[in-house]
């Protein structure tokens, strides 16, 4: 018997031996949606609060003020800024674009030598201060938002849901999905939280309070 058949047979035998318990119904009476719709002022206030608690920086921007907000976020940095191919052209003038048509061209060393990356996001969750990326053209492949030391992420107000179930429902495999809650951190030394280990050490969120038109 192959290992596969062996293991499956053992599972069936074990379930039979344990009295073939039927699967119980799963009670889903936990909060499956928030008290407020996506982008409501209460939701945005909570989102801001959670991000700040995780030592991320939040910059508010009007719909037409995204390029200026990004400029402000990058003001202190020197070195190349990298962006995914689908980011609106006017957001980061002069940025290095990571290839086109979903094929990245920058090497890990190129990414390591860059000062920052600027992306959009797929969805966000206020209760946990979480941003989700799904590899869409305005977010790029995963390495792009991992290796640079500063990540500037533009979040549209209407992308911010209140609860985790709403966040999970907004995301769809098979896209590779990355949930980001603050900059990387460790608590491995005496349970003391240290922000900034291998992922970007700085996370700056540009929160725009009206939908932007995609380029």
């Amino acid at each position: 018997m192959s290992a596969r058949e062996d293991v499956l047979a053992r599972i069936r035998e074990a379930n039979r031996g344990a009295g073939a318990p039927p699967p119980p119904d799963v009670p889903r009476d936990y909060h499956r949606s928030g008290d407020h719709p996506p982008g409501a002022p209460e939701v945005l206030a909570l989102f801001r609060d959670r991000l700040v608690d995780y030592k991320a920086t939040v910059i508010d921007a009007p719909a037409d003020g995204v390029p200026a907000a990004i400029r402000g976020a990058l003001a202190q940095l020197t070195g190349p800024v990298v962006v995914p191919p689908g980011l609106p052209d006017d957001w980061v003038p002069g940025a290095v674009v990571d290839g086109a048509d979903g094929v990245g061209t920058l090497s890990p060393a190129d990414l390591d030598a860059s000062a920052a990356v600027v992306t959009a996001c797929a969805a966000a969750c206020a209760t946990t201060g979480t941003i989700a990326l799904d590899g869409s053209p305005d977010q790029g492949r995963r390495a792009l938002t991992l290796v640079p030391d500063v990540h500037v992420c533009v979040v549209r107000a209407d992308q911010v849901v209140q609860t985790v179930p709403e966040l999970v429902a907004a995301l769809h495999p098979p896209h590779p999905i990355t949930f980001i809650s603050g900059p990387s951190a460790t608590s491995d030394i005496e349970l003391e939280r240290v922000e900034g280990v291998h992922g970007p050490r700085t996370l700056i969120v540009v929160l725009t309070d009206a939908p932007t038109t995609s380029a």
Partner: protein
Amino acid sequence: MSTNLGMPAVAPPGVGHLRGTQSFPDAARGALADSQLRRNLGHATRVIRTKRASVVAELPDWEQLRLAGEALKTATMARLDEHLERLEREVTARGGVVHWARDANDANAIVTRLVQETGETEVVKVKSMATQEIGLNEALEAAGIAAHETDLAELIVQLGHDQPSHILVPAIHRNRAEIREIFLREMPGVDPALTSEPRRLAMAARAFLRERFLRAKVAISGANFGVADTGTLLVVESEGNGRMCLTLPETLITVMGIEKVVPTWQDLEVFLQLLPRSSTGERMNPYTSAWTGVTPGDGPQTFHLVLLDNGRTATLADEVGRAALHCIRCSACLNVCPVYERTGGHAYGSVYPGPIGAVLSPQLTGVEDNASLPYASSLCGACFDACPVRIDIPSLLVRLRAQHVDAQRARSVPSAEALSMAAASWLMSSPGRFAAAEKASRLGRLLGRSAGRISTLPPPLSAWTGSRDAPRPPAETFREWWARERGTS
């Protein structure tokens, strides 16, 4: 069959880290004498308990989430074969390759062969309980492949030539000064002016590992969840070392225990709330990666998933004990356990320490190979209250004790140990009885003051000390200590 006794499908001996070289009481004696260890553990578990309590209190629907988590796990186990077949189909359809491993030896051979086929002689690793369980690093080393741990705590353990002592914070037994010493001694090129400030230590690890990430061709990970209906694997982490390993190399090999499958993507809405709050005491951990097979142009272009049994089906065969398979490895039960807090993880002799280890390890190996672990508890019930998927660990412990005694009885004339374990089992299954006997056993402390151990306990525990000596009980019993610390008993 109703128990796993005598089942051939337990985790094999001689490989991996599920069996200690000493019984729990013997190993615990050394740990209890180490005051530095107890200080480190006491501090760390106190910090994490406080954090967990505050973020759990934020969710008004916490109990509903726990009930949903419990039901989801129970339902998954009832159809485990179907969910695994679905997972296999979806992963394969998305360009991944699925392998099945009956046990540690199978899994180690598969992973070793897969690495050898890439021609590489080093791999980077994401912290993974399953690969520790099967002793993968040792198997790779025997084949001339160097496995570099990349989680900070795992790195501390690996550089310190040490064993992990906690599921989530494997170096919880080390304090900052000890970590600094390990780095200065073992980390090539480290700044000799390194201080013991946690930030400086973390930055030293970042610098040390960065180059390894950028050049790595093969990564090995575990998985927190495998979603059957989409074929998606998830790794939940904090530091970004997971993202590095899951993203930059060309080949990714993931070893996942078969019990980690969840039926649907939607089910993550429960577990992604339960896990981070219970483990690190955060609303959400910094990073969670979810990938499905191979994505052209993004991340590893070769993906292997190794599905591991290694005693899990033997555990599944027991209608009560199978609940140990529901564990999502959050470590909350360790952090609230008065026994773990005093002995640390090494005393359990397995990669799974604490209350969950006391019920999981003996089932994976067969109870005779970890016979003392089901007694490594005062049955106070704190583990059940903390468990995000409501595993009734005290009931599982009592059942394992009974199975151990049955096995002894079946073997021949019952030994003194078996009789005393039976007595202890009767005693410990009632809080009132146990408290009274524990108080009585404190008399032994007076008797044993000079030797640090005693050779007689009051009945019915005396049958136990007749065949082995017991460590001198602490001045307070676990229960008294618990009542003083928490204000409840």
